[in-house]
């Protein structure tokens, strides 16, 4: 019987009469080895997802349940080897050499990685859709604000008979708007007037134009009768936190600043693999699509502005599970609070954060 051969043509001569050729021996062997490599690499990635709690890699739904991840990894790897040796008699015949093995393993690795990232993203999306029920702000008294360049929403407590402290809230520019947001509702419940600033489309977020937003919001608030102009604070989330600190550094009318997970340093905008602890791969790519983030953090240089706040109250809050910004780096700088169990994405929406923010502003504004 004539042996079936797959040859990727003669590549390059190494020596007279010696040619280096990729020879996959038989399609059956090559395909089986490819499948073995594919399945075992998916298994290895599940081991990695379980070990490092990587939500962006897990195929079992929850990265917080590592036992299932380890079990899936073990099953995939063991069954793949058993299957391969059971159905591939060519294993004990002249077979694939190192170069063919490397090529097949490399291609299988890329396919396994792409499959895992995509499948995990789809799973993550389905689960996230089930879990996230947006909190309505319809019960809150609010009005749309459009004043000069300023766009946003003003939330008012029920009782505004006497002037109230007010807070300008800056979301992350990639979120566009902070309404509705649990932290806003809790602040209004505590009697604060909250003006949430809308960024509009990401592409329109620019430095230094963005520096005008907070002073503009403060100017608007001081014109309102319901607002006590001596008690205006700033709340910023993510990059909005950097902007809040920077603006407060030059605007003495801002009496207190609270920043939720600000970047402070450009290096923190490149989290690498750790980002997959909090989001799926497709979400991470979307997060990365806001390319100006690193540049804006560097331009805002919020860390330099902290000293300009003087004795005015400042609090930085990070989640201790924040996989994007390592809070411990900033811990030594003081004026920092770490919330247990919260990540970069979950921090702003957490009830514990809302309660802490409301309590802190009540004590410091």
């Amino acid at each position, binding site marked *: 019987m004539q042996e079936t051969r797959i040859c990727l043509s003669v590549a390059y001569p*190494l*020596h007279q009469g*010696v040619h280096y050729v990729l020879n996959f021996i038989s399609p059956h062997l090559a395909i089986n*080895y490819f499948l*073995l*490599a594919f399945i*075992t*690499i998916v*298994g*290895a*990635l599940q*081991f*990695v997802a379980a*070990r*490092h709690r*990587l939500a*962006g890699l897990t195929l079992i739904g929850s990265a917080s349940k590592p036992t299932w991840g380890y079990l899936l990894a073990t099953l995939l*790897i063991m069954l793949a*080897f058993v299957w*391969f*040796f059971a159905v591939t008699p060519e*294993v*004990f*015949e*002249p*077979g*694939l*050499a*190192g170069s063919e*093995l490397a090529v097949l*393993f490399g291609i299988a*690795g890329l396919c396994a*990685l792409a499959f895992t990232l995509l499948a995990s993203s789809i799973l993550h999306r389905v689960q996230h859709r089930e879990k996230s029920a947006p909190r309505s702000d319809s019960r809150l008294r609010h009005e749309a604000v459009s004043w000069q360049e300023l766009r946003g929403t003003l939330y008012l407590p029920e009782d505004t008979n006497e002037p109230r402290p007010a807070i300008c809230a800056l979301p992350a520019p990639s979120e566009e708007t902070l309404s509705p947001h649990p932290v806003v509702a809790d602040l209004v419940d505590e009697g604060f007037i909250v003006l949430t600033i809308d960024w509009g489309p990401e592409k329109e977020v620019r430095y230094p134009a963005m520096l005008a937003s907070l002073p503009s919001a403060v100017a608007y608030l001081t014109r309102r009768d319901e607002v006590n102009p001596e008690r205006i604070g700033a709340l910023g989330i993510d990059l909005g936190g950097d902007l809040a600190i920077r603006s407060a550094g030059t605007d003495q009318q801002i009496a207190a600043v609270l920043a939720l997970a600000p970047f402070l340093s450009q290096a923190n905008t*490149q*989290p*690498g*693999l*750790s*980002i*997959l602890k909090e989001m799926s*791969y497709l979400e*991470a*790519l979307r997060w*990365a699509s806001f390319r100006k983030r690193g540049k804006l953090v560097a331009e805002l240089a919020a860390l330099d502005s902290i000293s300009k706040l003087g004795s005015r109250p400042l609090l930085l809050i990070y989640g201790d599970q924040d996989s994007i910004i*390592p809070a411990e780096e900033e811990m030594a700088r003081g004026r920092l609070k770490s919330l247990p169990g919260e990540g970069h994405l979950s921090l702003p929406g957490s009830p514990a954060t809302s309660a802490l923010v409301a309590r802190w502003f009540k004590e410091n504004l």
Partner: protein
Amino acid sequence: MMALDLQLFRLINNLAGRNAFLDSLARLLVNEYFLTTTMALILVIFWFEGQDRDQRERNQRAILRALVALLLANIILKLCNLIYFRPRPFVDHEVNLLFYHPTDSSFPSNPATVGFSVATAIWLYNRRLGASLLVLATLFSLSRIYCGVHYPLDVIAGALLGALSAYLVVRKGGFIDPLISLIIRTGRRLYLA
């Protein structure tokens, strides 16, 4: 030297065919698929290992250097094969053969070269994982003698060639650092490093 090599070969190879379990285990270890794939999977897992970015980067550098060491060792091995051909043990002697008849040169052992180049490079960065890989590389090499396809000297030469390539790449291969940094930076941008 060759007599000693043959004596040692006989000592190990004569164990074959006496114990069905040992023979099965050797056949599992001796083929090109099981241990090479296992070692590659360990490297895949090691790529993601580390508590922070710096630790991960160190591990990733180790892996990339191990791959370069593997490449260098293979180039040297091919050159050795071009200038010196040593027949397999079963060609000149009666042996207990548990594997197919490879036709390429017996010296130096290809599996030993591959296994020891990767294991040594990792060992130079991470003693614990490196030691585990060295155990796997040793098992891979011993199984080749047990199954009758390599002399001990082939394996020792392969192991030395692999280890030397790893040492050269890890300790003296600073010139490949820019390429390694580029790969890691690209991986980080893609959230894969």
